[in-house]
């Protein structure tokens, strides 16, 4: 069966079109390049340094992972408001487990599983309790998870994790060691790339992945086509929760601490990255590659403005404008595509 809701570029895809689909949105890639050019011009001594680019890679990691989970949910025309709180909860539980003497091989998966469990609760509240919109179930878990974080931590940061637990979030690996191409990359960034690759493959190649787009395009049509919509919805929220767990692991490793306010408001950043990345709130559209670029754009804007000592208020204004413009460009693009057809 051919699903009309699947991004049409992929079906027509040969060669170039395929590359385009993989990148999500070519225009966004241009914006990234343009942004980097502008920042290089404005901050020639600092922007294109290895130290700064490594900083950016680290800074975007947790938001990029949150956005990836958020994207899978948004592809089903859903939303997950709880990701920031779940990230904070997973960090606190991770730190408590580490303090209780659990080794990294147990405590890290436990944190991710906890995220998945909260995701399952979101999914089941939506499908079994028939709450009218994912906004409600996830708003509830946003509060529950944040409250639980404060209760478990007593409102104080839990610091001092073991090096093994911190490795994912804080370590650097050297690629092509010994050769002239030797570069050191943050492990967290490699985790991000690996996860995006995995999810992109999953969404494109597997029937389940395609069904996610189908459910977003039209849940009723998907149901008539024999897709178990409820099962699929639970799956995407589990996936999103697990991603929040991974984001928590990365952030806890980076700052060597589980602080109870971690992830406060992070859900909005993840949603912004998804939107800038070209996913549609009505579901069925968008690619992980585009979302990745969305997260990169946000990271670059913040980094550039930080380098120029600009107040965070300007950063907020600019990110807001970028959301508007990104979506507007997309609207124009879709209109012109329709005319071309």
């Amino acid at each position, binding site marked *: 069966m051919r699903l009309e809701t699947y991004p049409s570029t992929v079906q027509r895809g040969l060669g170039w079109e395929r590359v385009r689909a993989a990148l999500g949105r070519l225009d966004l890639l241009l914006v990234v390049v343009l942004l980097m050019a*502008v920042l290089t011009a404005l901050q020639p001594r600092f922007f294109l340094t290895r130290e*700064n680019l490594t*900083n950016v890679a680290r800074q975007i990691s947790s938001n990029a992972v949150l956005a990836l989970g958020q994207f899978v949910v948004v592809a089903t025309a859903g939303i997950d408001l709880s990701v920031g709180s779940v990230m904070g909860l997973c960090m606190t539980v991770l730190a408590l487990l580490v303090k209780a003497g659990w080794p990294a091989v147990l405590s890290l998966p436990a944190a991710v599983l906890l995220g998945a469990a909260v995701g399952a609760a979101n999914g089941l509240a939506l499908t079994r309790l028939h709450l009218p919109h994912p906004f409600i179930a996830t708003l509830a878990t946003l509060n529950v998870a944040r409250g639980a974080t404060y209760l478990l931590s007593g409102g104080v940061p839990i610091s001092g994790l073991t090096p093994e637990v911190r490795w994912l979030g804080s370590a650097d690996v050297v690629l092509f060691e010994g050769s002239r191409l030797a570069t050191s990359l943050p492990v967290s960034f490699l985790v991000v790339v690996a996860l995006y690759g995995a999810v992109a493959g999953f969404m494109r190649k597997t029937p389940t992945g395609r069904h996610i787009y189908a459910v977003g395009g039209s849940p009723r049509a998907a149901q008539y086509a024999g897709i178990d919509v409820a099962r699929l919805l639970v799956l995407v929220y589990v996936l999103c929760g697990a991603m929040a767990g991974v984001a928590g692991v990365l*952030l806890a490793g980076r700052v060597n*601490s589980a*602080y109870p306010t971690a992830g406060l408001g992070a859900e909005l950043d993840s949603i912004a990255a998804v939107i800038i990345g070209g996913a549609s709130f009505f579901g069925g559209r968008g690619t992980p590659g585009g979302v990745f670029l969305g997260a990169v754009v946000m990271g670059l804007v913040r980094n550039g403005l930080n380098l120029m*000592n600009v107040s965070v208020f300007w950063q907020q204004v600019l990110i807001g404008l*970028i959301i508007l413009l990104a979506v507007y460009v997309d609207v124009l693009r879709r209109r012109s595509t329709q005319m071309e057809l």
Partner: protein
Amino acid sequence: MRRRFSVLAVLGACLLLALAVASTEAGPGSYTILLSMKGPGSGNPFWAAVERGARDAARGLGVNLVVLAPPAETDVQAQIAQIEDQIAKRVNAIVVAPTDVSALNTTFDKARARKIPVLFVDTDGTWPHKVTFIGTDNRAGGALAGRFLCEQLKGRGEVAIITGVMTTQSIRARVEGAREAMRKCGLQVVAELPANSDRALGQQVMEDILTSKPNVKGVFAANDLMALGAAEAVKARGKTGQVLLVGFDAIPEAAQAILRGELAASVAQNPYNMGKFGVESAVKVLRGQSVPKRIDTGTTLVTKRNAAQYAK
């Protein structure tokens, strides 16, 4: 297609323009010092005073000052990113009011690796390599407020505490100091409720206290914004003057409320000195001079007697 690229060009131009307009490069000078505050000065007079002190000191000493702050006092990640980016720019020293007592330690380790000294102001951190901590003894300030309520109420009756963001060390110390002082003199602390350092929540919490604990005669709020919110609630119940409200920070609006009799007192910190001492101490360190490990900026009880000087 052409239209699409023209839109793109507009997008690019907008970004470029915004970046150019928003850019505020520091002028020439010997040292560049980063002042990283918890919140923006335009949002809170306290941070505005810290910034003013730092700018005055920087002007006097001829150093470049970069002032940055995350959008909210809880936004740890934004502060980390700002400091990291400034480390990449090789500032000479960092004067920081950390949004979390330990979550920024790895960031400070990076500064240390680049031989950039780190000084804490306002909020002390757990980082062991800090040069100094410059700030209010919040516990003593809280005790000052507690003792004031003790005197006013003659050590008898019920009191309540409105706490702020309890993840913040300075707020916890204030609450602990006040609680201890009030218990010692015989006051009964019958409620201790959180209002996240927020004015609207302070008002709401005070409404709840007035409903559930009608005998409360005094309230200590861990910052002025909550105290001012509480004053609104008390006013709405027509109980102004019957419930003594004590805030913390002595922001101008609170000082005016003290003069009007809506608040009984507040505890003044000296944020101007935090910024000033912060920059001065940073320059001392850079010049190889020694700096004490702890610099107290002092607290003063502000009542009707002396509120006028804080009301501007």
